[in-house]
């Protein structure tokens, strides 16, 4: 089964401050470890919301709002898709991510399979 592990932004990320050299190195070695464990299928990080946009739909009408958006802690900063045997295994990897990257909030969500799978 696949889980999408998503971490949230903090104020520093949203301000576009680069992480410290140690953090970058730790993240790099963690990603290597994850892919060498055979569980990492893909993953990406995103830039601050000032570089993005948000679409909202109201009564069938689409409104596009450019970033930045307030409440950084509600914004996704990146994701990884892990192939694991259980939710608990995904959580174990997510814990390491929290410890290494120093993020403050991570969601672990089951990737939905198409009906009939």
């Amino acid at each position, binding site marked *: 089964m696949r889980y999408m592990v998503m971490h949230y932004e903090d104020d520093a990320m949203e301000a576009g401050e680069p992480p410290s050299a140690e953090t970058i190195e730790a993240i790099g070695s963690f990603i*290597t470890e994850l*892919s*060498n*464990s*055979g*569980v990492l*299928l*893909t993953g990406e990080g995103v830039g601050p919301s000032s570089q993005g946009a948000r679409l909202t739909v109201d009564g069938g009408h689409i409104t596009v709002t450019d970033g930045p958006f307030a409440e950084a802690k509600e914004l996704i900063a990146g994701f990884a*898709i892990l*192939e694991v*045997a*259980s*939710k*608990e*295994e995904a*959580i*174990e*990897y997510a*814990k390491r991510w929290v*410890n290494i990257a120093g993020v403050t909030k991570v969601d672990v969500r089951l990737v939905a399979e*198409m009906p*009939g*799978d």
Partner: protein
Amino acid sequence: MDGFEATVAAIWRVEAPRLVARLTRLVGDLAVAEDIAQDTFVTALGRWPATGIPDNPGGWLWSAARFGAIDLLRRRDRQRDKYQTLGVSPDKVDTDMDLIVEERDMGDDLLGLIFMTCHPVLGPEARVALTLRSVGGLTTAEISKAYLTSEATMAQRIVRAKRALTTAGVRFELPDRRERAARLASVMEVIYLIFNEGYVATAGDQWVRADLCTEAMRLGRVLSGLVPDNPEVLGLVALMELQASRLRARTGPDGQAIPLADQDRTRWDRLLIRHGLNALSRADSLDGGRGPYVLQAKIAACHARASSLDATDWVLMAATYDTLSLVAPSPVVELNRAVALGMAYGAAAGLALADQLVAVPALCTNHLLPAVRGELLHRLGRHQEAHDEFQRAAALTDNEPERHTLLGRARDCAGHDTPHAGVG
């Protein structure tokens, strides 16, 4: 399983392979290392309910396991001293205490473990079971379920495999340069055996069987992390991922097999395809890729890249089969080459090769050759002969849904009662 047990099971799966690998390097013997690892987890199961699960369970487990290992090595040393006093020369035991505290390259530990569980002194079944158990971190119950055997049978197979390693004097080691290619071939063979067990499964709980494919792919990725510069390892990863990308589309709702031509390609797993194609291009960049796994992955990639059967690059596929038939000749490769030739250059070209295979003993009792000849003859308008071939194929398969499909093809041919010589 409650939350605590599920969490500990997950920690076992994540941590046990590296823990066992590290312990094996330390004590030399896999069976002993596994015992220490098991004991350590039992200790954890006893302590963690009261203390809570540590933030760094891997570190906790390692320091606990270390005590078990040191204790064992000390006892061994004393034993050795005793032998020496008696004037007996026991086997040399490496008890380098520095190893215990030294942060060694974990990758080498795991690689050494994989070479051990895939050791040529073991038979294929033993290698598979031991690799899934020690390197995959699967429980004996999980392995026995996937292989449709009782847990007792599987437990015995694993115990015997470990004992066989001990008896044969197989210690933790990284094979030297000369030996390495052959040993790596054995590892790749084990991983691909596990994959195929899941992929070609025609009996039992399909979902559990597909899990074997997932496990094999994980092991393949682990191996490609440990041996990053080997194109065949990358080829194996690509081959498994590209084949597995079709898993969801190749079985219908009633469990019947859906041939490639009829698969809904939107159900192919894009993530696995992307991962597989990446691995393949890395393999290509290493040496151009002429090993059997890379070549098979290239063939699978021709399918994966195509949006339909017609859009498939059959000329490239036929050329790749040509190379494969030189590098790793086999009757099945020849048969598939006939299919590819038939698609690339017309049914007559395919049939010319398929006809040469009629006398090959390995294909005589197999339904594949008559099924392929049936298709090619049908496309050439030789419907009566095609009908007979499909009938023959149906009689040779022991897979019921497949027989059903083949008899249907035979009936299609019987509908054409004015045979004529056509061109494919």
